[in-house]
């Protein structure tokens, strides 16, 4: 009989010491394939995101200054050269103001002829100009830069061909300059003030709207929900154009402003409220929709008044939604440049400054500095949003009993009024744009016609721009949805290669923190560099697709990840035991189960690719003009009615794609998803 006295547990095997070694798991061919795919995606995000953004930082630190003391010039008279003099001594002597006293930038050039006065050059037959600097490249003759210490000899007539360019060094000089220029640094304050005002208006507005959708018994909720999402389908330029027609110099409602001008803060705030509204509503609908009926019953049992229940149950329950909506709206406003471009007048905002510095003044360094200034609030807002969304996911319990709004006629009447008011604002602007686009000659001849739709007769790219946009949206959506899903799948369900998966996850979250303007500028720096082997992409449709996929990567990635997390964690384990490759499990099981999410990702990509201006405004070429950019450029050229017409084309396209997708998902996806039925 075995007793408890046995030294080892009966049946257990005595320990064999020779095998006490750490195990290094061997990777299967499947895992190696996964590593390869992760590697490709990481490489893509590094090339299309990290390196370009790195270039912004490096550009911001590049400062340029003229160093005339390092250049000497010798006059050749009578067949012999006199002793050389430094250019600095000429400047000191003549009091010449280099570059009109403006700060030198990468592209600034100064001609030597302008520094040395004509009388001093009398009788000179030839010049020897020497670049004495150790880095060289200060002198420019035709297309050629000088080498360090090189002397260039030219006949007298050719002195005009020699240009001096500033020398580059790394430092914080650009930042110092930026903050010393009131017109520039004022933008920081302007941007923050405007964004804060929009938050202050929009959060209560959207809260009320979401409250009406989730906590009341008003009718036609679905219609209101639909109307509230309309602004997502249009570029942010559209509300600005609509407001110009409503309140501009020739607007129909201009008297309502009592002399104030819509061009400036008022217009920016109104248009920003319009285009950020749906984002706030969606966030708050989710926050309010997760309410637990039992909390409200408890409050009632405890005898709390309606008002008290609102302040102690409803608001705290929605606090994450409120904070998150505030940050999202703030970021959207501060990073948008379409609205201030159209309706800002001379009120400067950060994102617009980037555009002006780069497109207007070709001052890339200052553009980079503004980008970094803009990046700071964007990164902060992003971080807060991520922290909050994690807290919010933890807050919702799956056991919550869905809230059932009680009967309250007075409340419902107020809320219905609120919804109608907001809907009138949204639809009013949309209708105004459409009407203006059709009116023959606003405001004098209001006969309707299609002459403003003859885009080919205007600057901005014509109808080709529209078709380019559709191509861009289609390719970005299709390639993007596939790419992002594969990435999310490997992050969530991949095996081993933890470092690679964490790296990909990190890179996937990055784009959300990068404003579109900054990304676009980064692409100029990175891809427009002739020494970059990917330079050939510059100006092609491909770079627009690459940029758009990266720009919108994060939200799609989160959508895919959320859907994948809901799948059973053991699908992959079962597949491995059945010796099936991950690719088969992904295509045969995981992707079909996530089809609704993939459709959502596709739609998100498509709609945003149609409406975005910020990133692509730096990247389009004459052959890849885009509809959204055409709106901007036509408005800029004073063709406001055609701009409105094109903006409405974007709206109709997005609306049509949405409706088609709705029908498609009801019929085709519906039949593919029959397995969901119990």
């Amino acid at each position: 009989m075995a007793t408890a006295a046995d030294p080892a547990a009966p049946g257990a095997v005595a320990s064999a010491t020779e095998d006490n070694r750490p195990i290094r798991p061997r990777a299967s061919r499947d895992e190696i394939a996964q590593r390869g795919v992760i590697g490709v995606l990481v490489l893509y995000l590094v090339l299309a995101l990290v390196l370009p953004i790195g270039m912004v930082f490096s550009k911001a630190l590049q400062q340029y200054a003229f160093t005339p003391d390092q250049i000497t010039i010798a006059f050749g008279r009578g067949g012999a050269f006199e002793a050389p003099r430094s250019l600095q001594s000429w400047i000191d002597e003549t009091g010449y103001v280099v570059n009109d006293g403006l700060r030198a930038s990468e592209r600034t050039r100064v001609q030597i002829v302008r520094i040395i006065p004509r009388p001093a050059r009398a009788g000179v037959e030839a010049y020897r100009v020497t670049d004495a600097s150790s880095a060289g490249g200060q002198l420019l003759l035709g297309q050629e830069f000088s080498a360090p210490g090189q002397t260039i000899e030219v006949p007298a007539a050719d002195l005009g061909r020699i240009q001096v360019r500033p020398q580059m060094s790394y430092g914080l000089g650009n930042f110092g300059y930026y903050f010393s220029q009131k017109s520039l640094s004022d933008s920081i304050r302007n941007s923050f003030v405007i964004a804060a005002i929009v938050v202050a208006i929009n959060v209560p507005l959207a809260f009320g709207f979401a409250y009406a959708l989730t906590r009341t018994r008003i009718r036609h909720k679905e219609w209101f929900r639909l109307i509230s999402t309309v602004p997502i389908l249009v570029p942010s330029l559209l509300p600005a154009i609509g407001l110009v027609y409503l309140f501009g110099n020739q607007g129909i409602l201009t008297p309502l402003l009592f002399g104030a001008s819509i061009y400036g803060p008022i217009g920016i705030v109104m248009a920003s409220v319009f285009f950020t509204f749906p984002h706030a509503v969606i966030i708050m609908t989710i926050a309010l929709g997760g309410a637990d009926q039992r909390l409200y019953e408890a409050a009632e049992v405890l005898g709390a008044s309606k008002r008290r229940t609102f302040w102690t149950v409803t608001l705290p329950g929605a606090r994450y939604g409120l904070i998150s909506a505030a940050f999202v709206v703030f970021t959207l406003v501060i990073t948008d440049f379409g609205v201030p471009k159209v309706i800002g007048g001379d009120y400067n905002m950060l994102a617009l400054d980037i555009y002006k510095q780069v497109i207007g003044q070709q001052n890339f360094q200052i553009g980079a500095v503004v980008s970094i200034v803009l990046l700071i609030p964007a990164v902060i807002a992003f971080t807060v949003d991520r922290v909050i969304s994690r807290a919010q996911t933890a807050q919702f319990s799956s056991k919550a009993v869905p809230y059932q709004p009680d009967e309250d006629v007075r409340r419902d009447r107020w809320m219905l009024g609120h919804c109608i008011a907001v809907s009138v604002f949204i639809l009013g602007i949309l209708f105004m744009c459409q009407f203006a686009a059709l009116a023959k000659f606003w405001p004098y001849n209001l006969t309707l016609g299609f002459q403003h739709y003859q885009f080919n007769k205007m600057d901005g790219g014509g109808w080709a721009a529209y078709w380019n946009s559709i191509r861009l949206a289609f390719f970005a959506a299709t390639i993007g949805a596939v790419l992002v899903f594969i990435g999310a799948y490997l992050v969530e369900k991949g095996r081993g290669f933890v470092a690679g998966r964490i790296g990909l996850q990190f890179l996937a979250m990055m784009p959300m923190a990068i404003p579109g303007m900054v990304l676009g500028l980064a692409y100029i720096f990175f891809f427009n560099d002739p020494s970059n082997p990917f330079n050939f992409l510059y100006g092609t449709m491909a770079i627009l697709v690459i940029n758009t996929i990266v720009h919108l990567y994060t939200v799609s990635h989160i959508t895919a990840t959320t859907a994948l997390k809901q799948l059973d964690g053991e699908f992959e384990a079962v597949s491995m035991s059945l010796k099936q490759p991950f690719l088969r499990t992904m295509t045969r099981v995981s992707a079909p189960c996530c089809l609704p999410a993939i459709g959502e990702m596709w739609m998100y990509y498509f709609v945003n690719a149609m409406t975005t201006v910020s990133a692509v405004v730096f990247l389009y070429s004459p052959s890849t003009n885009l509809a959204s950019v055409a709106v901007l450029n036509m408005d800029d050229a004073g063709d406001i009615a055609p701009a409105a017409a094109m903006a409405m084309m974007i709206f109709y396209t997005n609306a049509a794609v949405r409706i088609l997708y709705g029908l498609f998902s009801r019929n085709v996806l519906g039949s593919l998803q029959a397995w969901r039925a119990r």
Partner: protein
Amino acid sequence: MPEPYLRIRNVSKRFGDFTALRDVNLDIGKGEFVCFLGPSGCGKTTLLRAIAGLDIQSEGMIEQAGRDISALPPSERDFGIVFQSYALFPNLTVADNVGYGLVGKGMPRADIRKKVAGLLAQVNLPDQGAKYPAKLSGGQQQRVALARALATEPGLLLLDEPLSALDAKVRIQLRGQLKDLQRDLGITTIMVTHDQEEALGLADRIVVMSQGRVEQVGSPVEIYTSPASVFVADFIGAMNFVPARVAGPGMIEIGSARFAAETAHINGDGRALAAIRPEDIKVQGVAPGDANALEVTIDAEEFCGSYMRATVIDAALGEARLKADLSMNLVRGMALTKGSRLPVALPPERLRVYPPLS
């Protein structure tokens, strides 16, 4: 013992600072049905996943059919697995689920169809092939998962709490079917469970685990009758534990009463823990001369249907209170109630002595 089918040597698994498995050694023979039994969180699933290669051990060796598989990925090992969630592919029909592992192996479609039908018949689900998993009951889903795991004819079947998500009645019914199927196929099977009844009823051998360690390995009868440690004794079945002292070779003292028991393995200062199961206390036909006999008083009763679990005390036992099972026949025949005196015996071969808890 013939060459074992699965040899586990010195297997340890750490998650960061946490050690989930400590130096596990185990042999499993071909065709055996082995249960890993232990409280939740003791490392059963971790050990199962190490055997599957899903979470490879930090140290140690695992050998299957003479092949060192320690570092191999799951796809290069030979096993079928059923999870507690079943992990059925929801968008594939039952037939496609079962045939999932057969595709891509050069097997003609017709053969796959035939084989799937055969498997479904084997798990008592004929004609369910065209349905989607969501349309099946829990028990049916469990059997589909089983059929899917068996389809590739693996040498080893791994089951992680396959019955725990089911209603009690279905669970017992499926327990029988599972055992029959395993016996018919002769497939080496490891099942993880925290349900001792399940383990005792199903397993050829049980591996009792606690805090990442193997506490005892043995047949259900061995585990039940000769628990190797206080933990095993306590975890499985009901057990009286009372403090005792070793009073001499083969002799212990509880209170002031002396009992014969195996004591050779107790060293130290003589303090010990005596253990006996309530049903092992002899209550019928106890003669005054019997070994370890004494008279006790019933202090409390708990009616358990077919028997009465009585708490008995006696001045000689000191503070010790023992639970003893009295058949209802006896209770009625002797008109036993609270306060009744009755002779009992603690048979020496049933009375076990453990080192004291530190």
